[in-house]
């Protein structure tokens, strides 16, 4: 065995540099995260507190507020962005290659600008007196809305921003998936007299299902981690109206320095993400079998 390892030593040497960083910044934090959430951090050393951090989290109104805000965000943003990606890709797909490239770029461009930049400009668009949003509303005779400073609208504003920022990644992935659907399927459907909408619903939508599943999972995980937008637009406010789970973790850990408590919330978030991903993949795949 040792001889085999020695003979293959160059294989290990090539991995070694990456593995050092991987160990220090991935493996160690993963292992450490288990300990952190069962400890309380004091100025002088740490103390084991068992499950107390988890109990505290589950009894903390602010944590549940953050969970509810995050859920409300995810429940709207995930389905909307996947649906919009599917619709946009379906409309782009029949175009000429040049036009395809143009629209693909137009819808991906806001994605390459960082979420910080996008959030900053939306904060300005949502400004109550001089913002673009209220200006457009005034054109159709709607009274100005106090977007970011009212607890009724603040979270909705963040959601509106997320929905109106085009799902560039989704469009690209759907276009790739649609490009690999054999043309003969559509021809057969046409001979059977199916119109375009039926072709889309019976052929395109079922055949891009793997992409849909992938996007749903990635987008759910993404919206469960929403932070940048909230931090830049509302700081979680007014009050706690837009606090999300990651924003709460950030505040608890790096403003209040309660690492153990923040660690416990991180574990709960991770568990939620895993469970959701599993449920979604079950739901979508059983649906596919059902339709046969």
């Amino acid at each position: 065995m040792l001889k085999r390892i020695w003979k293959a030593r160059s294989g290990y040497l090539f991995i070694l540099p990456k593995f050092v960083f991987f160990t220090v910044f991935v493996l160690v934090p993963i292992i450490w995260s288990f300990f952190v959430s069962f400890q309380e951090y004091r100025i002088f050393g740490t103390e084991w507190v068992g499950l107390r951090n988890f109990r505290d989290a589950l009894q903390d109104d602010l944590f549940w507020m953050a969970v509810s805000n995050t859920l409300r965000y995810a429940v709207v943003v995930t389905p909307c962005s996947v649906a919009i990606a599917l619709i946009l890709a379906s409309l782009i797909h029949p175009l000429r290659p040049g036009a395809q490239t143009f629209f693909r770029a137009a819808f991906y461009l806001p994605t390459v600008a960082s979420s910080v930049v996008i959030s900053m400009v939306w904060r300005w668009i949502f400004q109550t007196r001089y913002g673009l949003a209220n200006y457009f509303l005034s054109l159709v005779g709607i009274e100005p809305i106090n977007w970011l400073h009212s607890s009724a609208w603040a979270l909705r504003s963040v959601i509106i921003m997320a929905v109106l920022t085009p799902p560039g990644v989704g469009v690209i992935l759907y276009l790739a998936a649609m490009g690999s659907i054999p043309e003969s399927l559509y021809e057969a459907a046409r001979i059977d007299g199916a119109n375009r909408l039926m072709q889309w619903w019976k052929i395109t939508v079922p055949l891009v299902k793997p992409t849909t599943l992938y996007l749903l999972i990635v987008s759910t995980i993404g919206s469960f981690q929403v932070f940048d937008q909230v931090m830049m637009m509302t700081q979680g406010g007014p009050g706690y109206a837009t606090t999300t789970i990651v924003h709460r973790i950030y505040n608890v850990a790096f403003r209040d320095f309660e690492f153990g408590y923040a660690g416990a919330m991180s574990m709960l978030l991770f568990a939620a993400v895993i469970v959701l991903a599993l449920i979604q993949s079950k739901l979508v795949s059983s649906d596919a079998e059902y339709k046969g």
Partner: protein
Amino acid sequence: MKTRRVSKIGMAVIYAVLIAWAVISLIPLYWVFTTSLQQPGEVDVMPPKLIPTVISRYLPLRLSGEAEEAAALVDGALESYRLLFRKTNMGRWFLNSLMISLCATTGILLLDSMAAFSFAKKEFPGRNFLFWLMVGTMTIPGQVLLVPMFMVVRELNLVNTPWAVLLPQLSMVFGVFMLRQFMLTIPSELMEAARIDGASEFGIYWRIMLPLAKPGLATLAILTFTSSWNSFLWPLIAIQKSEWFTLPVGLKTLQDQNLVNYSLLMSGAAVAAVPMIIVFLSFQKYFVKGLTLGGVKG
């Protein structure tokens, strides 16, 4: 290639919907640049100026021969950019972001291609275990590990240094996975031939594998550079000193200090956005390839 015909009216409807949606999508970016070119007095007005004065008035002024006024107009439009680079640390933050993103990209290309080469083309005990150990951790969202990650960086005494932002990025596994998939498609016969000719293992990697893996490397480079340039939460935690802020963190501070000076804020946002827009428009095909090859964006 495509035999499916769409009627003329259908085409018109498709174009109308797509163009309308594209306009809505691009308004925020347009508004960044428009606001950044306006002077403070022009920003807080109702109705808003949808086209910056410098754009709408420059040509008429030039054509009517009033070159001096036209020059003054351009000068005024650039006022907030001047303020940005003179009165804030923007230049420094820009350089910080540039250095860190370039180092992260170079480092990741080197480390990941070496590891990928080994995983794709070499036999050794424990290879599959190590590979799946790495890839398995990709399912853990980074935000979950913020606290222990911070503790590691603090133990290493890296807090408030650029290393705290740079080094953790080098641990990302996505590139190893992506490049391995790419290298599996490169035939091994080329390596064997070089080995018979007496090439060293490192020579094979450097002179045969790397050149052949260029398209994959280019894709990874683009994705790494963008995600590094745009990353916000981790640098926000790891750096509290203004001199080592990256651009997104700097923008956050700028916003905290100038809550209502929107033309200054938007010029800052523009400075952060322009490099990414240029990178994207020049390397568009690599973005598309990277997304469809590896699935996730870094």
